[in-house]
């Protein structure tokens, strides 16, 4: 149980006031329009969404699962954390394409990329799916906070879940995405500083870097310091096939959209950037901050391992990073550490509340229920939906309980296995249509539960390693959506030409490009560009005069 001094209480309350204050300050901007409430007016310089990316992806559960991996697997656990690597390629491929589409959400993208009833069904499906997923994510992040407060203050799990997410909801309701993004900047800076401080304190407590290495080697576990220590091609805990999956899936996933569910959060940041370059930079540098954070965390977790080498229960060692802060920080700094935990927690919950509300408002209410809604009505419904997502998160959070890591692996990895390839195909293959995509999403949902939970529970299928499950799910779902794609009509050529000219996707778009050229659309754009360039040069010349 952690004891707070008056200075600790000061840090905690000061920080809460600062965060909620952001909502009050940006209240006027947030209520101007739907575009402001959900995308901050689409005019942000790259470093704002980049910091928000980093802050949103540093949640209360993140140090838990990360500690769990590194404590058990050593530096090999870093490969798990590279699932964020999809941003490496996405920043220069799908981010550019999505930014040019100007779609506010991934659901909206469906009605731009596809045509007809299939497109509308996909939009409705994705909007409902994401609305629910945002509740789920806010729930598991919230229950992680419940676990931290239970460890630190012996509170019941639901106190930590309900209290801080509700406080966070206040500024999201007030200022929408403006509040989220501005709070994320100060939260991102605070948490990065504290992550460095915790690693420094952990290093000192464990005797310094050289001593940590010596002690780990003396325990006969030198392999923990080698991220390239694998156990053969297919056998053992960390076979090379696992590594290939770990690298190929996220990085190649960057060619597509929605290959990881982080994409949905990033999509909002991409559209809030002021232009294509800023969108690309925000994705790349936000994730660069995430990978740097992971390496700094790994040092703290291995220092913790040296201090407490005999923990065998995952629910104990997944709290490694939190325990360093609570047990080793000096008096007065513990409150600052807790304030940083609040920053970590609230930045993610805020982003997810606003995102879930955006899907419910823009894609369900505004698109289907009330297309003639005024900006005032859109903002009002946005606020209302923020509260709905909050209450939904309480339900999911209590369902997840203490086993945060297990749920995360399922959600991060396997729930997207069947749609991984379709998410790439929608970008690189003109013939992939809405019916193929819709069937992939529906089939994945069923097949995923069958392969991971139901069939093993009945002894029909053995428990497979996660990387084998991934490829199996991809194949099984492929057997369903590929025939459906080829047996149904391609999307309307007008729609395909329009999205091609606007977004310039890569890959197999030959017939669409040919049609765009036949209609003179690419030539027309070239002429517009040349004219604009000549005008710019003329203006520059006048300026010189």
């Amino acid at each position, binding site marked *: 149980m952690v004891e707070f001094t008056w200075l600790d209480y000061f840090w905690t309350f000061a920080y809460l006031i600062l965060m909620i204050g952001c909502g009050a300050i940006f209240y006027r901007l947030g209520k101007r329009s739907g575009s402001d409430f959900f995308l901050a007016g689409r005019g942000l310089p790259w470093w704002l969404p980049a910091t928000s990316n980093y802050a949103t992806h540093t949640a209360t559960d993140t140090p838990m699962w990360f500690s769990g991996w590194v404590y058990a697997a050593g530096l090999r656990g870093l490969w798990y954390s590279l699932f964020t690597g999809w941003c490496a390629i996405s920043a220069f*491929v799908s981010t550019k394409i999505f930014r040019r589409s100007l779609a506010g959400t991934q659901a909206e993208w469906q009605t731009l990329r596809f045509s007809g009833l299939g497109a509308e069904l996909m939009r409705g499906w994705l909007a409902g799916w994401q609305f629910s997923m945002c509740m789920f994510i806010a729930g598991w992040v919230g229950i992680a906070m419940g676990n931290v407060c239970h460890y630190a203050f012996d509170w019941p799990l639901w106190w930590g879940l309900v209290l801080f997410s509700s406080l966070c909801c206040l500024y999201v309701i007030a200022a929408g995405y403006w509040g989220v993004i501005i709070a994320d900047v100060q939260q991102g800076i605070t948490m990065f500083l504290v992550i460095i401080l915790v690693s420094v304190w952990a290093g000192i407590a464990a005797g310094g870097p*050289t001593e940590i290495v010596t002690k780990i080697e003396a325990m006969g576990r030198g392999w923990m310091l080698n991220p390239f220590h694998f156990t053969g091609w297919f056998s053992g805990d960390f076979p090379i096939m696992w590594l290939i999956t770990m690298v190929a899936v996220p990085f190649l996933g960057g060619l597509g959209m929605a290959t990881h569910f982080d994409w949905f959060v990033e999509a909002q940041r991409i559209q809030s950037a002021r232009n294509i370059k800023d969108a690309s930079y925000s994705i790349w540098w936000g994730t660069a901050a995430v990978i*740097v954070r992971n390496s700094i965390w790994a040092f703290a977790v291995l220092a913790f391992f040296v201090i407490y080498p005999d923990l065998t229960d995952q629910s104990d060692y997944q709290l490694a990073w939190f325990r360093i802060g609570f047990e080793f920080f000096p008096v007065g700094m513990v409150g600052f550490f807790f304030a940083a935990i609040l920053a970590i927690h609230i930045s993610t919950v805020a982003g997810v509340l606003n995102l879930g509300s955006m899907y419910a408002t823009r894609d369900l209410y505004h698109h289907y229920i009330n297309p*003639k809604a005024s900006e005032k009505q859109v903002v009002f419904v946005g606020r209302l939906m923020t509260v709905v997502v909050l209450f939904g998160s309480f339900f999911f959070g209590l369902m997840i309980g203490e086993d945060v890591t297990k749920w995360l692996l399922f959600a991060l990895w396997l729930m997207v296995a069947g749609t991984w390839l379709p998410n790439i195909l929608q970008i690189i293959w003109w013939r992939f249509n809405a019916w193929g995509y819709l069937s992939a999403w529906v089939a994945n949902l069923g097949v995923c539960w069958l392969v991971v939970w139901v069939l093993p529970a009945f002894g029909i299928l053995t428990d497979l390693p996660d990387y084998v499950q991934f490829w199996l799910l991809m194949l099984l779902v492929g057997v369903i959506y590929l025939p459906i794609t080829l047996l149904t009509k391609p999307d309307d050529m007008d729609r395909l030409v329009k999205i091609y000219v606007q977004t310039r996707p890569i890959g197999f778009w030959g017939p669409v490009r040919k049609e765009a050229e036949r209609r003179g659309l690419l030539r027309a754009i*070239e002429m517009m560009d040349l004219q604009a360039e000549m005008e710019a040069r003329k203006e520059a010349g006048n300026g010189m005069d």
Partner: protein
Amino acid sequence: MGWIRRDWTPHEADEWSKEDWIAVILSPFSYILITMGLALTLFLQPLGYILLAVGIAITIFLFWVIDPKLTAISSEYEKKQRQYLKELEQIQRWEEE
């Protein structure tokens, strides 16, 4: 480095080129090398210094290559964005069509 093009018109920058390939191939290596290199560096491992240094060098090179292209694409697209946004709002309010 004459084989890397750094002067683009907006229309030329729209087309996929070897500079895009360079960015797409080097970018994952940059992430992997920085992650592993920094972690090992914090434990004062010589391999870490090498991986981190190579990771940083790759990152600098990658942005040196791709930045002019991204700048050209952005400047061109911003001029068309207003019209595209107007069309997007029409799709959003489909009942009015």
